[in-house]
């Protein structure tokens, strides 16, 4: 069964909490990783790797630069989930 956007958000918030120490309740879809959550390019790689483990969706490095907000990642995972 496909993941809902809410399920992806919940899972992503757990990952971001674990990797970047940002409390899960601060992770909302409109947040920008760099400007709002202070997450740098290397942490984005760690988040992508963890997201692959959790959601089974690979996010290659050349796609990462276009994923600027939490909603962008939710959309990417939702679209590419098998």
């Amino acid at each position, binding site marked *: 069964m496909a993941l809902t956007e809410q399920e992806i958000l919940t899972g992503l918030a757990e990952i971001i909490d674990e990797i970047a120490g940002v409390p899960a309740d601060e992770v909302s879809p409109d947040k920008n990783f760099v400007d709002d959550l202070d997450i740098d*390019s*290397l942490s984005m*790689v760690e988040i992508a790797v963890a997201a692959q483990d959790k959601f089974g969706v690979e996010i290659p*490095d050349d796609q*990462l630069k276009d994923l600027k907000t939490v909603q962008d990642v939710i959309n990417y995972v939702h679209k590419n989930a098998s």
Partner: protein
Amino acid sequence: MQLPQPAPGARVLAFGGYQPGNEVTNDDLAAAMDTSDEWIRSRVGIASRRIAGPDETVADMAVAAAGKAIAGSGVSVSDIDLVIVATCSTEAPIPNVSATVASRLGIIAPGAYDLNAACAGFCYGLANASDAVRAGSARHVLVIGSEKMSAWVDPADRSTRIIFADGAGAAVVGPVEDPAEKPGIGPVVWGSNGHLAEKIYIKDRTSFLFQEGQSVFRWATTELHPMALEACQRAGVRPEDLAAFVPHQANLRIIEALARKVGVPRERLADDIIHAGNTSSASIPLALARMTERGELHSGMPVLLLGFGAGMCYAAQVVTVP
């Protein structure tokens, strides 16, 4: 035809390190480009690095580091019959660095070759040295990693200039004489991922080093820990029994992630990068030299080495501290 009598094993007899005198702090870099001490520390974990003088060469630094290793080994230069210099930053490809270095150290007519496995070079050299001693093709081998990365870094490129630095590290390798004594250099686990070669390269002799930071970070933090664990397994050493994990000092965040995956606690992770930067093939022997000098490592302790870098090449082995 007959073959030489093989040695039962090889071991490291001493390490030596050399860093140029010119220290460049993060504040120095912040004065020259758009960056800050806080930014650099949080991205790569470096506080300061050493940069060679304009006339200081890869060979000069190699001689300085090797001289200390030879002095600490108790081996006479006349006993050294093979010199390997791991480097990827020479001023020119001809002549090789190793023959010149040997001559300057007073080592007469040894086998001498340079080895380019980028930041994995020292571990490749150590594996070659161990095999040469065990097979009997050399009795004492000088293995050096020496790099002048600053010569190939674009001074205007923040992403590489904050990371790369200069220096040299060396080891003297000799035979284990007594068959009852355990070997001091474990089996190497090595390989390469040439399909990723475009992630770190220098296009030609007039170009600067290019590195795709995110891809290298992903590769290093997801692909390499199995190699490190396999090196432990092949050596018969459990990760929890390691006195230290000494990976190539690429970036503090990479090596902290590697240590977590290998199962080595943070206090046993070599973090020489903080004051040495990323010195490519020199980083592992430089860290080992400093750790033994400071008394952080003692004779007989097992340490895990993991070199990795451009190519993308990697090599891991367990070594007993001399």
